[in-house]
Structures are given as C-alpha cells and as structure tokens.
C-alpha cells in the first residue's frame, strides 16, 4: 500500500507532467498559428497562459508543503528540488509560447510571408528537445535527458542563421521591417525554449543520478 507521502509525491509529479504537456502543446500551437496565420489559435494560447501560471503557483505551494511537512531525503528530496526548478522553467516556456503567439498575430496582419526561414526546422528541434525533457522526467531517464543537450548547439546555429538571413532580406526589401523583427523575435523565443529544455534536462540528471551538470559542461567534455 502506498504511503501518504508517496501519494503526495505522485500528485506532484502528475501536476508537473500535466504542466509539461500544456506548455509543449502551447509551443507547438504557437508555431502552427504562426505558419498558418491563424489568429484565433494564437489568441487561444494567450488566453491559456493564466492556467499555466495558476498551475505553477499550485505546484510551488505543494512543494513548500512537502518540504516543510514531510522532511524528504535522498531521491525524494532531489525530486522535489528538481521539481521546483522544472516548474519555474516550464512556466517560462509558457511565456515564450505566448510571445510567439503574439508575433503570430502581428505577422498574420501583415502581407503574406513567403518564407519563415529556419523557423520550422527550429520548431521541430525545439519540440523534440522539450518532449525528450518531459519524457525524461516521467521516466527518470538521464539518458533521454542527455539527448536534449545534443541539439542545443544546432538550435543556436539556426538562430544565428535566421538573424543573418533576416538582415539580408531586409537589405533586399524582401520582407518588411515589422515582419523581419517578428521573425527574429520568434527565433529568439525558440532558442530560449531550447535553453529551458536544457535546464530541465540538467535537473533530471540531478534527480536521477545526484549529479550536478549545470550548463552541462561535464557532458560536453565527454
């Protein structure tokens, strides 16, 4: 029979997984809204941010309760400490999805965009990173979490490439200034989501193996 504390921990994990799923969906939908010029879909993402914020507060409160009332140690303590950081990272990913949705609305009101440059590929990579990070948390799988690091450099390069190409397009008047700025904004937001997915992976490794791999410097050396 599961102890009361174990049930509380399961509740925390369930809420975090729920939060992860919601923000993953928000990022995917925000990019879809951008590509499809779907203002209604973009607005739904803006409206959904309040739910993410409420869930973050609820999870934070449950973490305080668990720490104060249950005196967790070892793997349970690592889980709760990791959960606190992951909770914060997921909420910020939600904010970036909102930013992308706002750009989607702005760009939908401009003349039709001929190209989204590297953004669709960036989105695909970012969604994979986020999915691996969340799955890594669900399964306490440090190996899956490490896969997230492998894509980070590629995202950074795509972000830089996007910025360069936008400048070229602006110089040749192939894109409006507003459109160009939004392209750069979306690229940066996707890059930030990738950074946050990497942070989550670092916390998963800490949780699973009690290893601190901040900025995954140790992994890079390997």
């Amino acid at each position, binding site marked *: *029979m599961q*102890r*009361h*504390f174990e049930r*509380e921990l*399961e*509740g*925390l994990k*369930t*809420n975090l997984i729920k939060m992860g799923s919601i923000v993953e969906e928000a990022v995917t939908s925000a990019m879809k809204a951008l590509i499809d010029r779907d203002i209604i879909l973009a607005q739904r993402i803006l409206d959904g941010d309040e739910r993410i914020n409420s869930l973050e507060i*609820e999870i934070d*409160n*449950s973490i*305080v*309760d*668990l720490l*104060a*009332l*249950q*005196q967790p140690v070892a793997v349970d303590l690592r889980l709760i400490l990791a959960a606190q950081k992951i909770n914060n990272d997921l909420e910020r990913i939600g904010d970036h999805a909102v930013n992308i949705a706002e750009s989607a609305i702005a760009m939908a009101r401009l003349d039709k965009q001929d190209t989204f440059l590297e953004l669709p590929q960036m989105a695909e990579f970012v969604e994979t990173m986020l999915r691996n990070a969340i799955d890594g948390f669900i399964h306490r799988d440090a190996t899956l979490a490490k896969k997230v690091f492998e894509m980070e450099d590629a995202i950074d390069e795509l972000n830089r490439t996007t910025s360069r190409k936008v400048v070229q397009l602006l110089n040749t008047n192939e894109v409006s200034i507003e459109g160009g700025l939004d392209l750069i904004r979306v690229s940066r937001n996707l890059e930030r989501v990738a950074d946050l997915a990497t942070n989550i992976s670092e916390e998963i490794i800490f949780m699973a193996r009690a290893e601190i791999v901040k900025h995954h410097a140790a992994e890079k050396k390997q």
Partner: protein
Amino acid sequence: MQSVNPEGRLATLKNDEMEPNNASSPGMTSAEQPIQPGQPVGQPNAVQSPALAMMKIVTKNIEAYFGRTRALRNVSLDIPPNRVVAIIGPSGCGKSTYLRCLNRMHEVAGGTMTGSIQLDGEPVLDLDPVILRRRVGMVFQKANPFPTMSIYENVAAGLRLNGMRNKRRTAEIVEQSLQRAALWDEVKDSLGKSGMSLSGGQQQRLCIARTLAVDPEVILMDEPASALDPISTAKIEELIYSLKDSYTIVIVTHNMQQAARVSDFTAFFYVGELIEYDLTKNIFTTPAKKQTEDYITGRFG
C-alpha cells in the same frame, strides 16, 4: 486568554465538506480546501457558530492542577471531527495533562481540573467515566497489552467487559479491529499466542486494535511511537493517517516532524499555556507567534 480554535479555518465548511481525505490536489487535505486564504485563526471570545457546533470536543478555560501545582493555564482548544490534532511542546508544558483531561484520566492520576470539556456538546463531567473512556479511547506511550492474555483475548477484552457474549460477533470485531490496526496479516495465524510475544511496534498496534474494538469516537494517543524503531513508527503514522477517516484523533508528540507528517492541526503548548493553534501547514511554514517559530526551528526547547 483568547479562545483558540480552528473555527476561522473551518468557518466556511459545510457538513459534506467535512469528508476527510478527498484531496483534489497534492499537498491539500479536504480540511484546507474550503478555507479562505488569510482568514485568521482563533477569535477572542469566540461566539458560538455553526462551525463551533460541529466540533467533536470543545474545551474552554481548562485549568489543571496536581495538588497546588498548576499544570494547565486557561486552555481553550477545540477538536474538529475526523481530523488529527497534534499537540507539541517542550517537556513539562502540559501536553499529556491536557490529553488526559479529555477522557478524565487526569483524575485517575490524582489531578484536579476546572473549566469545561464537551464531547458532542455533552459535558464530560456529566458522563459516566467508563462510558466516556469507551467513547474516547487512549493509546499510551508504552504499549501495554494484557500480559496474561492472547492476541485474540487482548482485543476481545473490552468487548466482553462491555457485555458482548456473542462469540461469532466477537470474532468478527476482533478481526476487523486487527485489520484496521494493520496487524491482521501479521497475526492471523497466531491469534492464540500471547500478546507479549509480539514486537514493540506490533504490541502498540495490538493496543490500538484493542481500543478500536469498542468502537470509540475519539482516539487519544500519548506519544504512541516514541518507544519504537523508525520502521514501526512509519507504520503507526500511516495507520493514524488511515484511521482519521473514521475517528477523531488527538496525538501528543515530542517529535515535531511526526506532528508535521501526520496531523491536520497542531497546537503548541508552553509552560501550561496554549500559545498557538492552527493548520499544521501554517504552523510549520508561517507560524504566527515568534515563540512557536523559535520552538519548531529548534532555537529553544
């Protein structure tokens, strides 16, 4: 002295919201769900209200003495039904004295008491002490199974004393009580063995089964796990958590962490006075009184 009770926290509860353990979110018990954030706990000169009327035990202005030595000073504390209330405080603060007042065991120890204690609205002084102690059972620090009786007889003893003669019914109740005390699986094949043959943790659970057999409404526990190893303690704590579905539990413990783990409300006593009484999560995260905070953080006591 202010009347301190969880009325402020429970004021918005309706009867059907008193169902325990229907948590809809992690970390929250049903006792917490309807409570308004920021609602103060404990009103001076608390007025009788529907919430107060729902209390299982209402104690007002309790003063307890051993001879001329005052052990409790003007304690007013209300115990809600189907909740676990923990009483914490340093040695000699009056925790056990207060507990023993609730079922008049304080008198057995030669003490005297003034003030009012009501069980479901009835003054306990008006109740036959034997009946009172059946309704308000007690589990002591040191497990005390009847040494000459078997495991079965230990649990059945209270039933027989209360006039139960039906053997089949007695056997049913003994099994149910041992199951509720999470001991049945460990002893079902050795019910005829002496109660003293069990380990310390098992003996304590046997005593809890014995208490449960007479169908109490309230269970008082005076440091029930202080003599037990960590595994047995964890079993007792999990048992307490499961029992509050059906019983009101008041537990005295010098182990603050235990109070934090098992209780819904915590009362902090110091030198015979009730200092603070609130939701356990509030006591251990944002206590209102500095004295409480100093105690739970280990700065004194």
